[in-house]
C-alpha cells in the first residue's frame, strides 16, 4: 500500500538536529560521509536484556545494524545518517535509554560486577558506581572541565576496571583481624597470603605483618574456621591516572573511605580541577604541576 503523498512527505521529513544536544556529547562523527555514531550512557556497564532489545531495534531501524562495545563499558550505535540522528535520539530517550558523553566533562562511571556477583568482591562497586554517576554525570560541577574526567569503581584489590588509570578511581579493601580462639592453626592463610604478610608462629598462630598487608581479604575468605574477620572495609582512592599518549598511574590518596566520602572526594577533585587545571590537561598533569601534597590538602 502506498501512502498518500502528503503523509509520505511528512514522515520522511528529517527532524532538525538539536545543536545543543550535539554539544552535550554522545553524538560522534563517523569517518564516512554523513554518518554518525550515538554513544549510549550505560553506567557500570549494566543494562537489562529488554534495553538491549530496544537498542538493537534502533540500530536496525536507523543505523547499520552494528553495535560497538567501548572499552569503558559503553555501547555505540554505528552508521546513523545525519538526518536520522534526532529521530534516533528521541526514540532512544522515549525508550528510557540515555545518550552518553564525549568531550571535556565527567564521563560515564564504569565498575566491575563487585560484591554480590564476583566471589572476590569486597565492595558493592556497581551500587557505588551508579550513585556516583547519578550524582555527577551531566551536573554543573562535571561540565566544562579542562579535559575529560574518568571515574571507575573496582570491587577489590585485583582492580579489574583499572582504578589507577582513571582520573579518580576506587577499589574495595578490607582489614583482617584474627579471633585467636577460632583459629585451628591449619596454616591455610599463610599460604594464601600472596604478600607474605602472614607467618605462623611457634604456637601455631598466624602473625600478620601490617606493613606488607594490602587489604585484599584473601586470608578472610580462605580461612576454613572464619578465624579472620573483617575489622573494617572501605574504598581506597587513587587520583591523577590516565592512559593515552603519556600514560601515568594514579597515586593513592586515601584509604577506607565510605561511599559518601568517595563522593566528597570526587566533588572536591572536580572543583580543584576546574579552578587549577589548564585547558586540555588531565587531572594528573594538573596534580604534577601543582603538587600532590597540595592536591591532597584540597580534597581531603
Amino acid at each position: 500500500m502506498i501512502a498518500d503523498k502528503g503523509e509520505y512527505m511528512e514522515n520522511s521529513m528529517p527532524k532538525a538536529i538539536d545543536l545543543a544536544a550535539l554539544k552535550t556529547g554522545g553524538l560522534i562523527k563517523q569517518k564516512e560521509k554523513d554518518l554518525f555514531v550515538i554513544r549510549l550512557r550505560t553506567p557500570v556497564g549494566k543494562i537489562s536484556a529488554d534495553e538491549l532489545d530496544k537498542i538493537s531495534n534502533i540500530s536496525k531501524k536507523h543505523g547499520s545494524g552494528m553495535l560497538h562495545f567501548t572499552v569503558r563499558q559503553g555501547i555505540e550505535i554505528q552508521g546513523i545518517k545525519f538526518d536520522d540522528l534526532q529521530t534516533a535520539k528521541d526514540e532512544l530517550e522515549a525508550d528510557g535509554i540515555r545518550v552518553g558523553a564525549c568531550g571535556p566533562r565527567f564521563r560515564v562511571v564504569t565498575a566491575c560486577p563487585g560484591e554480590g556477583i564476583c566471589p572476590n568482591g569486597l565492595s558493592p562497586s556497581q551500587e557505588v558506581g551508579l550513585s556516583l554517576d547519578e550524582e555527577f554525570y551531566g551536573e554543573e560541577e562535571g561540565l566544562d572541565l579542562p579535559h575529560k574526567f574518568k571515574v571507575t569503581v573496582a570491587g577489590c584489590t585485583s582492580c579489574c576496571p583499572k582504578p589507577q588509570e582513571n582520573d579518580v578511581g576506587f577499589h574495595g579493601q578490607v582489614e583482617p583481624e584474627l579471633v585467636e580462639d577460632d583459629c585451628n592453626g591449619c596454616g591455610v592463610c599463610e599460604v594464601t597470603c600472596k604478600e607474605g604478610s602472614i607467618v605462623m608462629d611457634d604456637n601455631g598462630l598466624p602473625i600478620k605483618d601490617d606493613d606488607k598487608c594490602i587489604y585484599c581479604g584473601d586470608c578472610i575468605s580462605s580461612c576454613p574456621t572464619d578465624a579472620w574477620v573483617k575489622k573494617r572495609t572501605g574504598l581506597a582512592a587513587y587520583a591523577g591516572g590516565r592512559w593515552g599518549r603519556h600514560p601515568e598511574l594514579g597515586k593513592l590518596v586515601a584509604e577506607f573511605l565510605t561511599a559518601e566520602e568517595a563522593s566528597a572526594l570526587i566533588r572536591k577533585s572536580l572543583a580543584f580541577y576546574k579552578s587549577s587545571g589548564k585547558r586540555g590537561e588531565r587531572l594528573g598533569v594538573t596534580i604534577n604541576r601543582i603538587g600532590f601534597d597540595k592536591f591532597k590538602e584540597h580534597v581531603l
Partner: protein
Amino acid sequence: MSEFPVDDSIDLRGVLCPINFVKTKLKLEEMDDGDHLEVFLDEGEPISNVPRSVKDEGHQVLKVIKETDGNYRLIIKKSG
C-alpha cells in the same frame, strides 16, 4: 592416621582449579549429610581456593593438614 574418621576420600593432586572444586562438589553430592570427606590438594591456588569455595557452598571445613610433601589434606563435613 587421622583423628577424623572419614567416609570417603578423593585425591585431587595435579587437578587444576576449578576442576578440583567441581570434583569435590560432585563427590559431596553423592554423600550423606554429616559425612566426612577427605580431599588431597596441591599447595598454591588449590589450597587457597577449594576450602573457600566449599565454605561458600555451605559445607564445613573441619581441618586442613599440611602433609610432609607440601600438599594438603582437607577434611570436609557435608552440610545440607
